[in-house]
């Protein structure tokens, strides 16, 4: 599908009429968001392909904004009567004078991601074979691999946005993702390894051995962890792995820079614009345009073209992440971060691909300088309280660092700390940059985000483990 401009889901004339109808009782802003989503998922467990599921969602959401208040309604279906119903429901709570929308100005066709192989055109049998190959590869990694589960999913999401400010924009997004979990068992010890592969790409992303490599890596992690010791507890230097280790930055800084948190007083980064929060070498971005990555889109879900926003430069906070509403409130421009899970949700400021820019050191150098510390390669997930900045992360793969070398694997570790403290304690970033797939939950909505970084070292962080 490369180079094909996105086809709008509805006629601009109809879109304009619906937006006008939404404003018939007044309002500062109205928007129609139309969506058509179709997908397939398939999994393998106990070496048996199962869980085949197809789904299609078609519908629209209409919002009317007046002052600080948003009235929103969503309906299934894109027929004219459905759209009118949504517009009427959104307008029902207002009682002012009709407002006139600006004429629609179709924006230049956005540059779509290159999709080499449309996943919908690949047979289900081929996808089942891919899962069987993952199963065999992971089981072949060692006799102690006791279970393998793998899941494949693909989705195509087409959207069209029309607003009273004249926006008329469409996007066509295809995403493919594979996740593999391997469980290794030795006597009473059970450990798991988990790996994912995904992007705003076509089926090509899982071909040519890429799926099998993902499975092998999951199995290797599970096998390695069989030798794990209880994790240490206490404050120590921590080296965070590249790629998925970036979820730490996503949680401890990315969320705090989302403008809705800032405006509500629920962020530790309030008043920090231009202020130093990290050592001068630190640079970080939110980048919705990284080619083929999981959090990449041509436009956001309000029709604003995505872009690369530096959020930290020379150790100073340089930007907050905006959608249209929060930008209007601050007299700023949207940074293309207005995202929504579906037409059933309101857009809010969300990250796209958020990462610490690569440094120059080799990952080994970061570790070699640590006498006694912890190496957190990958996380099972994490949570941060945006107001206080307190965070906690479950480490899914971690090791002790002793005498500058990675030694025993550890189980049951968590990292616990405070965002600003820890950001200031990043004392080295390595060059091995990589972006991985994540699902970010916020306000009851889940959106695909890319997380990434090279290896990062934090001079001191609390490790919570069972070894007291």
């Amino acid at each position, binding site marked *: 599908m490369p180079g094909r401009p996105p086809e709008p889901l509805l006629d601009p004339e109809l879109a304009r009429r619906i937006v006008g109808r939404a404003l018939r009782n007044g309002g500062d802003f109205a928007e129609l968001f139309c969506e058509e989503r179709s997908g397939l998922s*398939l999994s393998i*467990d106990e070496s*048996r*392909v*199962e869980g*085949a*599921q*197809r*789904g*299609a*969602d*078609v519908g629209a959401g209409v919002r009317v904004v007046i002052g*600080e*208040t*948003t*009235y*929103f*309604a*969503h*309906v*299934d279906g894109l027929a004219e009567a459905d759209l009118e119903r949504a517009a009427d*429901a*959104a307008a029902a*709570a207002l009682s002012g004078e009709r407002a006139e929308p600006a004429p629609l100005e179709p924006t230049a066709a956005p540059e779509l991601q290159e999709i080499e192989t449309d996943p919908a055109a690949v047979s*289900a049998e081929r996808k*089942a074979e891919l899962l069987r190959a993952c199963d065999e590869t992971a089981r072949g990694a060692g006799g102690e691999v006791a*279970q393998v589960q793998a899941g494949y999913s693909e989705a195509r999401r087409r959207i069209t946005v029309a607003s009273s400010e004249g926006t008329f924009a469409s996007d066509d997004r295809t995403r493919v993702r594979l996740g593999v979990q391997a*469980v290794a068992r030795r006597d009473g*010890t*059970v450990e*798991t390894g988990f790996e994912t592969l995904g992007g705003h790409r076509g089926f090509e992303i899982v071909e040519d051995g890429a799926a099998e490599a993902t499975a092998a890596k999951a199995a290797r992690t599970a096998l390695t962890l069989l030798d794990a010791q209880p*994790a240490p*507890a206490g*404050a120590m230097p921590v080296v965070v792995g590249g790629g998925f280790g970036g979820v730490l930055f996503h949680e401890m800084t990315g969320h705090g820079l989302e403008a809705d948190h800032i405006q*509500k*007083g629920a962020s530790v980064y309030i008043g920090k614009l231009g202020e130093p929060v990290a050592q001068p070498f630190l640079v970080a971005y939110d980048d919705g345009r990284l080619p083929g990555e999981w959090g990449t889109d041509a436009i956001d879900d309000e029709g604003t073209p995505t872009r690369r926003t530096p959020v930290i430069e020379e150790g100073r906070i340089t930007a907050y992440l905006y959608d249209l509403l929060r930008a209007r409130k601050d007299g700023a421009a949207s940074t293309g971060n207005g995202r929504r899970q579906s037409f*059933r949700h*309101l857009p809010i400021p969300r990250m796209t691909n958020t990462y610490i820019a690569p440094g120059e050191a080799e990952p080994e150098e970061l570790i070699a300088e640590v006498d006694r510390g912890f190496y957190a390669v990958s*996380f099972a*997930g*994490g*949570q941060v*309280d945006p*107001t*206080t900045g307190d*965070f*906690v992360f*479950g480490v*899914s793969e971690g090791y002790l660092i002793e005498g500058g070398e990675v030694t025993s694997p550890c*189980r*049951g570790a*968590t990292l*616990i*700390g405070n965002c600003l403290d820890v950001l200031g304690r990043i004392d080295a970033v390595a060059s091995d940059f990589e972006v991985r797939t994540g699902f970010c939950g916020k306000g009851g909505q889940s959106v695909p985000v890319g997380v990434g970084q090279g290896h990062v070292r934090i001079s001191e962080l*609390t*490790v*919570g*483990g*069972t070894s*007291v």
Partner: protein
Amino acid sequence: MAELEPIAERAVEAALAAGAGDAEAFCQDATGLELRIFEAEVESLTEAGERGLGLRAWLDHRAGYAYGTDLSEQGIREIAGGAVEAARAVDPDEHAAAPEAAGAAVPIPGLADPEAAAWTTERKLELALAVERAAREADRRVIAIETTVFVDDRGTVALASSRGVSGSFEITSCYAYLQAIAEADGDKQTGLGFGLGRSPAALDPDAIGREAAERSTALLGATKPASRTCPVVLDQTVAASFAGFIGGVLCADAVQRGRSPFAGRLGEEIGSSPLTLADDGADPAGLNSSPFDGEGTPTGRTTLIEAGRLGAYLHDSYTARREGGGARSTANAARAGYRSAPSVSTSNLVIAPGELSFEGLLREAGDGMYVTDVAGLHSGVNPVSGTFSVGASGRAISGGELAEPADEFTIASDLASMLAAIRAVGAEARWVPFGGSVSAPAILIGEMAIGGA
């Protein structure tokens, strides 16, 4: 909304016409109102309406699922075709088959509160504003409220299958929650307050707001406690979160697939004697109650753990068939909506209350930690091995009484050790929407590892 049942029946016919040997259709129609309040103003008002169909098709012991929102003849045909095509993609599984009709379901009193419909949007708005106001007025140190949310839902579901399953029911639910931010001497803390019921009338705005204020202010001045092993009291919300996790690993699919630390332990002691845990899908007070489960099996009560002894696992029709030996579905085929196939899950968990008051639990603990919030439970527990380490906040317990606030620490153990270390269960239970839907009292664990300073 009575026309849902004919749609479900037509979908079953369409799947059979598309080549399915058996089929089961689940239809859902839901409307809802969500209000978000910020600084005494409406931030957003959402009118939600959705209606969809989920269809399972079986072809010679192969199951496929498809869903869609287009319920026209053509739309239903496409969903049916999708389900049959999905079934063709999977490997055969001898236990995969359409559930048989399992008898008549008993209606649950009060599942849909007729009073709920009488509430106008204006009254709901007043209630939501009152929740926020109550938190602000409860304590001067509450400096802000991060969004107050009020949600009111009404839904109808209908089920039909080629094996004679047929039924429908209506359900209403309502909840409100808010996060208060308190500040004193440069320290900021947050606290959650919530309430739930079948209609807005069941919500007490003062209690919800006050809870958020109390939880946030109680943590002001918190410091990191010393790392040690000590008794820990889990409050009702934290006990519920852990109960949800335990319920998950007692689901038969986890057990059969070797993903439960409690596999092969039926009849054995897996916890200490104060612990009795049941799943009850027919409890009128439970938010996840329904007359029948996602496959049409009438719901009821299953005692999972009786005085520490493991009595049962939770089943749907597939895991029961796979178990063999006369095992039956415990009516735990749960549906998250029409967009996903049913799978085994807890309905409402009920931890049997003990005899000690909250003060009694603290006295019994002596010196230890009182945990009022945990973070990262979903990522911090390994469901296979049962080991966990999660972030926590709360208060120290000193000389049998609550002492200084504490945060930024972890509690770590494994599920088996934790259950064996339960020393007492509190007398006052509360319905909590964490870990699914759980009726939970506070729980005293004799020993847990605290990771702090």
